[in-house]
């Protein structure tokens, strides 16, 4: 097998988080629009377990939503989505996310697209994985300028779960909602505790020993480059073609 691509390592790391045996088992993972890496990770997790429903928003073939663009949120509210992914223009050390902007409300210095479903999904879905490829002090900040969705909530606020992890282009963090604080658990090849420290605007703990984010084992890599790549083609053709130019013809997925 050829060398493991950085994206493949991320996909493998996220699939492991989805399947984390210490967490409640995910039966249904939903993925928002324009999220190729989380989508591939969910498909990989499905291939590994053989028993995971993966609903990708705006999927171009076999779109699982037949009840309009509100259905994802209704599914989540009903408790039928176990795990979701969120990102942020800014993410802070307490797992607050900002998709609004910077400077005076509603983003007079920098404006992000907007909060999408984050203010809802973060509280309604039991398990959240934060994902943002860019790992820099401007994204990972001490305190977000505006809170689209809060990392933790006071007692009495209806909330089903929190972020479990933050995955970036440099590292993987675990999140403790009790302490409202991240712990660095692994760094990707080429990164060190120092390079991550320099690229991160918030304080965090460090797991000891700090490991390197592992590559997917050969069996997972084969799944990734086979059925997962095929499942990705219809919705993410450019992404699939870039990573896996020899990807098999898409199957219904």
């Amino acid at each position, binding site marked *: 097998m050829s060398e493991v691509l950085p994206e493949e390592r991320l996909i493998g790391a996220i699939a492991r988080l989805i399947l984390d045996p210490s967490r409640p088992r995910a039966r249904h993972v939903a993925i928002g629009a324009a999220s190729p890496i989380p989508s591939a990770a969910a498909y990989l997790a499905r291939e590994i377990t053989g028993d995971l429903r993966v609903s990708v928003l705006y999927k171009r073939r076999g779109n699982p939503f037949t009840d309009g663009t509100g259905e994802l949120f209704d599914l989540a509210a009903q408790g039928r989505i176990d795990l979701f992914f969120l990102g942020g223009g800014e993410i802070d050390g307490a797992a607050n996310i900002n998709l609004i902007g910077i400077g005076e409300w509603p983003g007079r210095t920098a404006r992000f697209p907007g909060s999408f479903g984050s203010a809802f999904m973060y*509280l309604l879905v039991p398990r959240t994985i934060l994902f943002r490829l860019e790992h820099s002090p401007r994204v990972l900040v001490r305190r977000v300028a505006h809170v689209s969705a809060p990392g933790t909530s006071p007692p009495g606020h209806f909330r089903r779960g929190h972020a479990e992890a933050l995955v970036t282009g440099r590292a993987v963090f675990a999140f403790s909602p009790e302490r409202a604080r991240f712990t660095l658990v692994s760094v990707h090849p080429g990164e060190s505790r120092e390079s991550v420290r320099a690229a991160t605007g918030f304080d965090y703990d460090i797991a000891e020993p700090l490991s390197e984010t592992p590559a997917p084992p050969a069996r997972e890599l084969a799944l990734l480059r086979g059925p997962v790549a095929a499942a990705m083609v219809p919705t993410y053709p450019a992404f699939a073609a870039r990573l896996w130019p020899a990807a098999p013809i898409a199957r219904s997925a």
Partner: protein
Amino acid sequence: MRLLDLDRLAALVPAGATLAIPPDNSATCAAFARALVRQGMRDLRLIGVPVSGYATDLLIGAGCVAEVQSSAVSLDEAGPAPCFTRAVKAGTIRMLDATCPAMHAMLEAAAKGIPFIPIRGILGSDLLAHRPDWRVIDNPFAAGDPIVVLPALAPDFAAFHAATADREGNVWVGRHRELAVMAHAARRTLVTVERIVERSLIEDEQLAPGVITAAYVEAVAVAEQGARPSGLLDEYPDDAEHFLEYARLARSEEGFRAYLARHVLPPPAAAAE
């Protein structure tokens, strides 16, 4: 149902109206938005259901918009919405930020004729502080359970693009149920379609589940490829190149004018006649 041409359909919307529109991935009313630009629309108050993209950015760039209420404005894979981003930073439009299920819920409340609707989540978000029209009350069925309540949102107009309408004004929107909610919630619904069909869309049990009936539809215009550059279900795919062209040009005021001249406004010769 009135069958109009595209420009007459757009002319039904007065300056200052609230207008609900779908995002780029859901039967967006792109041709309709271009017609609004051509007629020099002013002070529109756009409502993204639940987000919006090309049409909103185009209307903002052309100076047609006073206010946007949406959960996001973006060109998706083509990147941020340039005119929207500029206008927010410059403070030239009023932005009412929301979150997707709240946009749906406010419209659903209007569609159900109820003055408000509760929603989970949102507590702890700064959205709340900037939406004085959103309140937090105690769940009347459980003590110590604060919950957000949203007011019903009944837009003056809803506009979207669909595949077909029949002569009675029934419109087939397929799986885009959010369009039905928009139409139910809005006072007047304006629709562009690819084509008018002669048979009744509600007599066919296979088509009926995807039909918004004529009771909700004020007027229809034929606008072939009217969602472009967005795709429409299985009729035609997105035009990714056009989105990229728009995103590139709209990055500057000058480029945006060039886009308008190339794709929106009538050719100068025709205009001079």
